[in-house]
């Protein structure tokens, strides 16, 4: 049995000097496995780091918890329901030492057939991740997947 625990603490100082902080802890137990991956993304490279739909026998084939962190800037693209004609794509910029953590693989696909943007679509599964180094420097990426 495997587990994934993430503790996040935010500390801020406001414009008038007022300080505030708070921490959150989430533990996901009863996982089948946890996989840590280290990937070097060279300058200007654009590569899939997880694409089980296209890569036969690649494991994990799905995740329950996900953490992405890099030691530089990386753009991240997440395919939602890859393999379906109505696939949709999230995109975010990952900033140095600022992990992106998802406790679910849910996302909406098939937006185009509705009038209500993403929420008018259908709840599907994030099932591919691609990264793009925006031309600055080679970046080391750590990906942790709880299955």
């Amino acid at each position, binding site marked *: 049995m495997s587990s994934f625990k993430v503790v996040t603490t935010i500390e801020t100082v406001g414009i008038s000097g007022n300080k505030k902080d708070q921490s959150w802890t989430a533990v996901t137990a009863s996982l089948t496995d946890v996989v*840590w991956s280290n990937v070097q993304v060279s300058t200007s490279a654009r590569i899939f780091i997880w694409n089980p739909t296209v890569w036969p026998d690649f494991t994990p084939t799905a995740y329950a918890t996900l953490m992405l962190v890099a030691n530089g800037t990386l753009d991240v693209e997440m395919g939602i329901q890859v393999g379906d004609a109505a696939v949709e794509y999230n995109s975010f910029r990952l900033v140095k030492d600022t992990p992106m953590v*998802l406790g679910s693989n849910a996302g909406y696909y098939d937006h185009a057939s509705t009038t209500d943007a993403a929420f008018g679509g259908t709840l599907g599964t994030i099932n591919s991740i691609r990264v793009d180094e925006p031309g600055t420097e080679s970046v080391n990426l750590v990906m942790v997947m709880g299955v």
Partner: protein
Amino acid sequence: MSSFKVITRVETVDDFGIEASQSWVSETGSLDNVMWVDALITQGATKYVWNPIDWADFKPSSCSKLVMTADGDLDVEMTTHKTPHYIREDTIISVDTYYQGYVYIVPTATVEVIVGVTMTVGDGYSEYNSFRLVEDTPFVLGSNLSYKDHAATTDAAFGGTLDVIGSIMVSEPSTASVNLTMIMSN
């Protein structure tokens, strides 16, 4: 001058019982301001929690750092390249122009449409990011950059154009009311 610091620690145990852990710290100074916002999202509700394009004078008007965390599950929709488009009273428009916005008018024959209000819609290049926020698992962005206009290309999001996230909507998936905390700085 304001600052924003995020400390993240991940601890895992794999199927062999092997423990692993790592921590990361990121701090940004020289920010104009930082805001903590609490919102109660009632059961089954879908609502904007940040929409400075449509909400005049809403602060912050943009954010370079974002934290979203909740005490229950919430679906999140972030619009990349949120822009208003106003259809004003007595203005004749081409219906086809607006097919990618929020307003769909699908005539089955030639019709005359009289729009008597000012409406706001996204433009044709907006894209919508979506994911599920899980209890006590903050979603942190150190940048508001994201790709718009995927549809014009064949290369998914990266074939689009880099732009900024301009609005956030949440939807409670009909389980229970949820308390949402957002921390935004710019």
